């Protein structure tokens, strides 16, 4: 909300500069956005908190200054405002001969009006035009400028009708009827429904109360008789209707945040006095004021010991009473500790003891609150369970040379999305390309690869993935190209392939205390059909691994040699944990035997490993495949494998013993069809 420095000084006398006032308002909660100088005067722009509609007025701002700055004094104008800008004609009933008003809906709780005759709706006084212009508003006419100006001062939205256009000289606040229409004064046509509260005359709807008036009853240059409305509307009704109508106005902004229902007549009076000052006619004597149920003030009792305890600072009863009085609260009673107050009608946000405590605290000053670390009981803090596993997965991948990516959840459909899932999709996306919640990290990771050279990138991401009805912590990995950058030295030429990534995944399992094994598969269309596997932890499927499908590589511009893996960390977390176990170390030397044999390629290596383990009992410490050959001299469909075996036991191995174990192993392999070379 914007106001000029002089508008505020009309209501409060303070030695503070505009900047100091801005800072004071910030420290009361109305944050100063900026001070600008327009035509030689400072204009302050402050943020209004969503529960503080009373702040959207110069009087509200003046009240905050008076509460916080003990040396500030209210001006006569402020004191008159607090009395409702009293005029002497208010008991007259002359006005009833000119117009009438009725309320036929719960969504209007007060409808006040004045009537003016013999108007010449020219321009508003220079000083008013000057102030409005400084606030960025365009002066329109005397009547319109006056409603705008008085709203700025008092916070009460008002609407001026050309009374000659009002059928029956009568206005009613009521719900719209089905089929009714309204053209608002911005020229927009609206179809109305019975959930919307409207102002109607004898014939038709003439305005959207609290939002915007209608074009047909708008004041114009030829207007001579004017009915001025100052009403109070229920905030939720205004909010609902203005959203449906697609409108947002200064009036609706205020009603949504609450306007003081006690302020309608005062605003009419202020209008009347400013109109007369501007050379206009006096109002027709009397005020129409339909006010079925007077607004009640919230009465709240605050315990000062509790206030001091929650605020963490000492404040005396005397100080608390002074702060609250300056804010417009009435002290109803007090004893040593309990203080009962009535909150002003412009402060419906004050309901509970804590709300009053906040008022006391913010006027006293939050800068006086000391800084103390928490005391009391505490359990074991920390990052545990699945959240620990996610962090540990990050560390594992980083140790293996992978760079962590961090990407958006929202995106478009992508060839690397996880297949066969009902997606979670936004109903109101910012753009169609941002409608899908990711169900895989691979689309974003492919973007990381493309952004960083299109090859020789090893990257991963952890984070939530989504499908309809559920979300989980996912891990995605893409690995492609060299592990070491090109160098003037002869470097490690090994490139990422299925087996380097398999190693990364196995290391991950080891560090997370979960077994991860591979089972051949061919069903995931993102992967090369003969180079993919399902990842298992025990019997639980936890993910997939494979080389990218060449068609997907083509579609995404990723290199064909890229290898990728995805793991559902929640599933992995749920799988059985493998503990670390100690076995006593043999201090005897190990012996090594190498075997080389030819075997059908169709025999899975895991079968060979299983057979070797089964034949060698406990003495096999380690085995490793060190050569695979399928060239000249090897029958079609077969290959030659060379495996190193390392044996060790408690006590020395003799050559014969080692040979015996080797022979058992060979016998086992022969039963799989192996022929020793």
């Amino acid at each position, binding site marked *: 909300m914007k106001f000029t420095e002089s508008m505020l000084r009309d209501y409060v006398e303070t030695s503070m500069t505009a900047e100091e006032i801005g800072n004071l308002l910030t420290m009361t909660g109305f944050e100063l956005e900026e001070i600008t100088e327009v035509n030689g005067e400072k204009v302050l722009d402050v943020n209004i908190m969503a529960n503080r509609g009373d702040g959207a007025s110069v009087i509200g701002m003046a009240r905050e200054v008076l509460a916080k700055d003990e040396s500030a004094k209210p001006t006569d104008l402020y004191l008159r405002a607090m009395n409702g800008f009293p005029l002497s004609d208010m008991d007259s009933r002359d006005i009833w001969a000119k117009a009438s008003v009725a309320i036929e809906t719960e969504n209007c709780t007060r409808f006040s009006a004045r009537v003016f005759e013999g108007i010449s709706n020219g321009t508003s006084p220079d000083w008013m035009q000057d102030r409005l212009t400084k606030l960025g508003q365009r002066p329109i006419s005397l009547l319109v400028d006056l409603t705008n100006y008085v709203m700025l001062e008092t916070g009460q939205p008002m609407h001026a009708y050309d009374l000659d256009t009002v059928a029956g000289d009568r206005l009613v606040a009521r719900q719209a009827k089905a089929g009714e229409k309204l053209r608002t004064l911005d020229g927009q046509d609206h179809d109305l429904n019975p959930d919307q509260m409207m102002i109607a005359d004898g014939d038709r709807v003439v305005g959207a109360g609290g939002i915007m008036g209608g074009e047909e009853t708008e004041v114009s240059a030829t207007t001579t008789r004017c009915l001025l409305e100052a009403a109070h509307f229920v905030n939720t009704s205004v909010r609902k209707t203005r959203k449906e109508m697609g409108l947002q106005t200064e009036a609706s902004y205020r009603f949504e945040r609450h306007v003081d229902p006690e302020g309608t007549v005062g605003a009419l009076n202020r209008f009347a006095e400013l109109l007369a000052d501007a050379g206009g006619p006096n109002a027709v004597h009397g005020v129409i004021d339909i006010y079925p149920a007077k607004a009640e003030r919230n009465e709240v009792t605050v315990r000062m010991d509790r206030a001091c305890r929650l605020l*963490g600072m000492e404040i005396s009863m005397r100080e608390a009473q002074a702060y609250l009085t300056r804010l417009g609260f009435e002290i109803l009673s007090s004893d040593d500790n309990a203080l009962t107050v009535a909150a002003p009608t412009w402060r419906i946000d004050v309901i509970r003891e804590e709300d009053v405590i906040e008022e006391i605290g913010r006027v006293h000053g939050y800068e006086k609150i000391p800084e103390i670390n928490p005391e009391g009981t505490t359990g074991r803090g*920390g990052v545990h369970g699945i959240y620990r596993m996610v962090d540990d997965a990050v560390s594992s991948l980083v140790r293996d040379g992978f*760079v962590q990516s961090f990407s958006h959840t929202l995106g478009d459909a992508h060839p690397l999305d996880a297949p066969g899932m009902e997606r979670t999709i936004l109903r109101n996306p910012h753009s169609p390309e941002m409608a899908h919640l990711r169900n895989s990290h691979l689309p974003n990771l492919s973007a990381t690869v493309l952004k960083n050279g299109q090859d020789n990138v090893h990257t991963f991401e952890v984070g939530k993935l989504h499908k309809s009805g559920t979300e989980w912590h996912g891990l995605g990995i893409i690995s492609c190209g060299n592990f070491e950058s090109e160098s003037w030295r002869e470097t490690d030429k090994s490139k990422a392939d299925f087996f380097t990534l398999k190693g990364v995944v196995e290391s991950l399992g080891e560090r997370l205390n979960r077994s991860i094994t591979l089972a051949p598969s061919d069903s995931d269309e993102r992967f090369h059909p003969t180079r993919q596997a399902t990842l298992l932890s025990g019997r639980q499927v936890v993910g997939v691994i494979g080389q990218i499908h060449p068609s997907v590589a083509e579609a995404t511009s990723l290199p064909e040699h890229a290898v990728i893996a995805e793991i559902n960390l929640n599933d992995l977390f749920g799988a059985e944990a493998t503990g670390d176990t100690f076995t006593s170390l043999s201090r005897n030397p190990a012996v090594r035997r190498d075997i080389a044999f030819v075997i059908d390629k169709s025999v899975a290596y895991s079968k060979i490993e299983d057979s070797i383990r089964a034949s060698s009992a406990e003495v096999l410490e380690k085995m490793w495949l060190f050569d695979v050959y399928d060239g000249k001299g090897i029958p079609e469909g077969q290959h030659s494998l060379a495996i190193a075996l390392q044996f060790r036991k408690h006590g020395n191995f003799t050559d014969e013993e080692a040979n015996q174990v080797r022979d058992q192993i060979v016998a086992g392999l022969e039963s799989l069809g192996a022929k020793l070379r």
Partner: protein
Amino acid sequence: MELIAKVEAEALAAIESATTTAELREHELAFLGKNGSISGLMREIGKLPNEEKPKFGAAVNEAKAKVQAAWDAKSASLKNAERAVQFEQERIDVTMPARHRSGGRKHIMQITMDRIKDVFTSMGFVYEESPEVDLFSYNFGALNYPDDHPAMDEQDTYYITDDLLLRTQGTTLQGHVFETVKPPLRRFTIARTFRNEAVDRTHSHTFHQVDVFMIDKNVTMAHLKGTLRTFARAMFGDEVEVRFRPDFFPFVEPGVDYAISSPKLFDGKWVELGGAGLIHPNILENYGIDPDEYSGFAFGLGVERIPMMAYGVDDLRLFTENDFRFLEMFS
């Protein structure tokens, strides 16, 4: 005896004349080895009368020691010379470029989140998460938002259905925790949050919030301020001060906006970090917690703001673009 002197002279001359360690090793075999000429002298001893044997033996040993000493000295000097040549040949230019393994690296957001977790876990807070796609009620109703209130307008929300939305704030964890955990409790989360906004240098539809809350007996605004100061100092240095100013968030009362400043940072200005306050008594009561017995505080702030402020990162988009040139600036 003459023979000894002759062999000794021969050996010394040969050693002296050697120019390589390889040559010297040949002389070692020829003179000092098992079948060398000095060892051969010992075999001459058998031919001598008994009374001369000791004297001859001593003389041979003396000669052998002398030759050995000469050999050792020559060997050392030749080795030094050869090493000197070798070292010159092996000279490298240490200023040539290093070789790097493709190094793993945490993302700056992860680094920041790890630091945040360190601070709060060390203060006894338990890390927890709640869903990104959550019920409307956890995002608003459970947090004391009045029905259809303008406070919701500040959080343009993405909806999946009428009831399901992408959470707009990390505070949604509160309802999930209060349903299952009784006080005293200390919890914190780092939550990915979403608002329906266009992306530019300073705005994004996706950002992250740290949200921290505790409930215990006698929790006060002073504890809130103390915790914030501890946190802010861990992130931005020991000279950081914390300032509160009143603000409105439906889930706290009193509610504040907190700002930090430090003589060395942010041009000495106050920089607002986030919202905070004492947990609203309506919320406590909704979960069966007596506000006269317990009180609690809650605060939140944007995670991205921490590196933006600490390093002067000037574009929010960098955090999700995964440009390695950016990521490599932080470790």
